[in-house]
């Protein structure tokens, strides 16, 4: 039960139930659809990008508590950041979700997102946490759709 409590922390449950920035905007410049074919989770991420900065971000879709919470927290975290910064954050986030031996200090910059590190103990759930991020990168790259395999 301990690692489960670690995975399903209050913050995650809260974002899972009441996702932030959960809307379809009408002024998006970029958007991408993310699919997890294994479980059928689907998210669309919308961005308003201006001179290399993500001015606004939102998402809609359906999925498990982990993927919805991850998406919700992601939108809060990246708003106002530059594309380059976002790519670096993605790499760190990905490392945090997959690398068992990761040094805690090195992910401090992920701040609140660190609550998602519990997925490391659940290999089948890592993709739930990373799906929104893959979708985000796809949207930034101007791709319409991305699938996690």
């Amino acid at each position: 039960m301990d690692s489960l409590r670690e995975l399903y922390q209050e913050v995650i449950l809260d974002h899972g139930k009441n996702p932030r920035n959960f809307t379809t905007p009408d002024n998006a410049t970029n958007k991408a659809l993310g699919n997890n074919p294994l479980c059928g989770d689907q998210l669309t991420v919308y961005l308003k990008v201006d001179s290399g900065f993500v001015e606004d971000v939102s998402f809609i879709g359906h999925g498990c508590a982990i993927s919805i919470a991850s998406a919700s927290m992601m939108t809060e975290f990246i708003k106002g950041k530059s594309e380059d910064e976002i790519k670096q954050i993605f790499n760190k986030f990905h490392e945090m979700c997959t690398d068992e031996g990761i040094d805690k200090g090195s992910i401090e910059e992920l701040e609140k997102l660190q609550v998602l590190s519990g997925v490391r103990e659940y290999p089948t759930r890592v993709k739930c946490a990373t799906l929104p991020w893959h979708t985000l990168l796809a949207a930034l790259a101007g791709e319409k759709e991305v699938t996690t395999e």
Partner: protein
Amino acid sequence: MMSLRTDKDEKYTFNVDNVRKDFPIFKESMNGQPLVFLDTAASAQKPNQVIDSITEIYKTEYANVHRGLYKISETLTAKYEGVREIISDYINAEHTSEIIFTRNATESINLVARSFGKSFLKENDEIILSELEHHANIVPWQMLREEIGVIIKIAPINDEGEFIIDEFEKLLCNRTKLVAISHMSNVLGSILPVKEITRLSQAVGAKVLIDGCQAITHLPVDVQKIGCDFYVFSGHKLYGPSGVGVLYAREELLEMMPPFMGGGDMISAVTFEESTWAKIPHKFEAGTPAIVQVIGLGVAIEYLKSLGLEDIRKYEKTILDYATQKLLDIEGLRLIGTAEDKASVLSFTLDFAHPHDVATIIDGAGVAVRAGHHCAQPLMNRMNVAATVRASLGLYNTEEDIDRLVSSLHNVSEIFN
């Protein structure tokens, strides 16, 4: 736990405690808890009888089949061919040569699509599937459509997950050349009226393929009574090894159909100018088959027969009824698939947690279920759900397993509410 249950009007004896002793997996634990295995619809656990027979063959009897002119090869060939008889008897085929060994049900369906479909169907011929098919009984037909331009029509189900025979009948016409339909849904547990479907289809001249992947484990199957042209299933869901599947097809069809793959074992004579095919069934079994797995499947069927097929079914029904009752008592739980005629599968959603979160949390309590779309995405769309939790039963499940499932679902509720 229950043993030697006897009902007033349905007398049977089935000792689940003894049966569980035959399945060594139940000595194992999962996440520190005794394993509660509720995923038989994906693949069944194996009894010692099957496991030991496999080990024994490799240790003392192994050789290739149909080739060696020496004792152990002959003995093993006889055992391998003997399984054709066991299966033929199990599904009541008219001839042993109507049983073709494949890798799995998926390959069996692809064999029919490639061999029968490509040779005997043509552009604008119609194939009818149902809304509840597994991807294995959808994709091969879409591939055939790509290749030769057949038309695929979909027979609907109702909200309970029951096949609507009247709607199906409206789709039938003289362009219908094949009806490919499940005997039992892997998601909803619904049992389809395959005999009636076959009768109606054949009346317009269509051939009928039944996907028996789930039915073979839980229902009596009599291909002659059903009257179908093709019947497919996988050995691994029938307590046998993975790597072997079965295609039953009526003899006259197999005679007409061209081989699916070429190579050794399926020929009668080969020159560089031409080759002639072996007789059925071997025409469809190119290359060294899954020798030991086939024999293991034979052992699995003999094992089930020794327990009493009718008794197994009655016992499973008591567990299904018990589980249905217990699950419906959980607040916020919705059963997906409430057909009157159903067996051994319980799909559900909880209004407070996503199926994947449910599966992860109850895995922590040692309970193995499946969550997701169960390789039936069109059916998920039909039932308006993205995913379900699926608990599926085998002959080794007990009321205690169901109680453990229910209490683990209360853990989920504790975390989420």
